[in-house]
């Protein structure tokens, strides 16, 4: 009897594994697209509610943990406020200078794009910073490949899958993410790839090109829907590839992807 039971179990196990392996290997993506679309349509209100609840609890717990620091924080803020007032005058000058630099470096001005603001309603549950779900989809004019940025023209990823009312955006740190990028200061070009959610790597930089630690990295605008001039991050470390054919650099993203709340999708250039 126990032997028979084990056989029945094993048959079910083997059957389930065989079905799963067939699904993984043949990857019938389009076959499941309607199922996935239906799932997201059903899950959308729950995702939104749960995500906001989680965020509210996160904010509340942050307040609770920091309550003891309020007095010190207040004193610090007063001191900082005085310093900021003094700096304000200088900033006006710097703004003019910044605008001029943006023009010279061909960084994209913020009012150049038609943007669609969206809230994040889900993200990579493995904590590897691979993707985010946003609450804008096909009905809002979102399409695959559109760049996703934050307030200041900082690129965070691009749309990889679109559903009726939601979309999935692949973050730059995902291992399958790959975009053309260039060094602002030296114009060296390379390909920026994700490092399994751990960071960004600028590779395929020719040995004759110059890159330096601290240089800013932007999109080069070569290929695809990605416009030129979206800021990505700063070079943190430089090395050679094992075969010494190319240089590569670890790039620190300008923002922490896990802290994102609101993002903008670039629908088109104005």
């Amino acid at each position: 009897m126990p032997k028979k039971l084990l056989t029945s179990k094993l048959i079910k196990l083997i059957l389930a594994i065989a079905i799963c392996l067939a699904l993984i290997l043949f990857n019938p993506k389009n076959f499941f697209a309607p199922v996935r679309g239906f799932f997201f349509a059903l899950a959308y209100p729950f995702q939104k509610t749960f995500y906001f609840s989680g965020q509210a609890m996160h904010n509340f717990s942050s307040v609770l943990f920091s309550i003891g620091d309020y007095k010190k924080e207040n004193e610090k803020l007063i001191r900082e406020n005085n310093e900021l007032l003094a700096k304000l005058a200088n900033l006006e000058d710097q703004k003019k200078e910044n605008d001029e630099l943006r023009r010279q470096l061909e960084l994209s001005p913020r009012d150049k794009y038609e943007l669609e603001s969206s809230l994040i309603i889900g993200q990579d549950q493995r904590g590897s910073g691979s993707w985010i779900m946003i609450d804008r989809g096909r009905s809002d004019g979102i399409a695959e490949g559109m760049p996703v940025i934050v307030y200041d023209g900082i690129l965070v990823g691009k749309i990889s899958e679109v559903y009726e009312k939601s979309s999935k955006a692949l973050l730059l740190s995902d291992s399958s993410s790959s975009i053309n990028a260039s060094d602002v200061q030296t114009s060296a070009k390379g390909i920026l790839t994700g490092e399994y959610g751990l960071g960004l790597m600028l590779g395929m930089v020719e040995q004759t090109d110059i890159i330096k630690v601290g240089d800013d990295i932007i999109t080069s605008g070569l290929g695809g829907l990605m416009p030129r001039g979206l800021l990505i991050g700063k070079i943190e470390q430089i090395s050679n590839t094992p075969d010494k054919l190319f240089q590569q650099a670890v790039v620190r993203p300008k923002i922490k992807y896990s802290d994102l709340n609101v993002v903008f999708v670039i629908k088109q250039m104005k």
Partner: protein
Amino acid sequence: MASKIRILIIIFLAVILETSFFPALFAGVIVPDVVLVLIILWSSRKKFEDIWLWAFFAGFFLDLAISQKIGINAISFVIISFVASFLRERFFIAQRTGAFAIALTLVVGGTILNWFLINFLTNFSMNFSWKLLVMKIASNLAVAIFMYFLIARYKRVFGISESKLIMK
């Protein structure tokens, strides 16, 4: 039928918790595998024959929700539910005490197995961070402790019938 729909809703809510609630709560740093823990705790109380289809559907839903290749989480959950169920029947069923510790042990083992399986099936490599794995185990244990008592308190809601050990 009603209990099947109830279990389906529980799995659906667990998927939403894992993909939307916990990533926001912990700012995406480390997210507990709610669905995996649920399947392990179920498997530690049920026969494989009663749980394997639910394990498959739970993995299927999670694959849908995280937009990755269909089957990756499903295969992992089916294997883990088999192992958990097998261990329970072979080694633990005779033990009247220590059910809680056994369930937590299964959660630790299941988390490690799931981590390796998912990493391998997603990237076809075994490169991973030990630090993240340890954090994942800790977060899964925290969820398992809460969920263990929740299941014990609301057995019928979770489709547990101790006397028969079947999925209602």
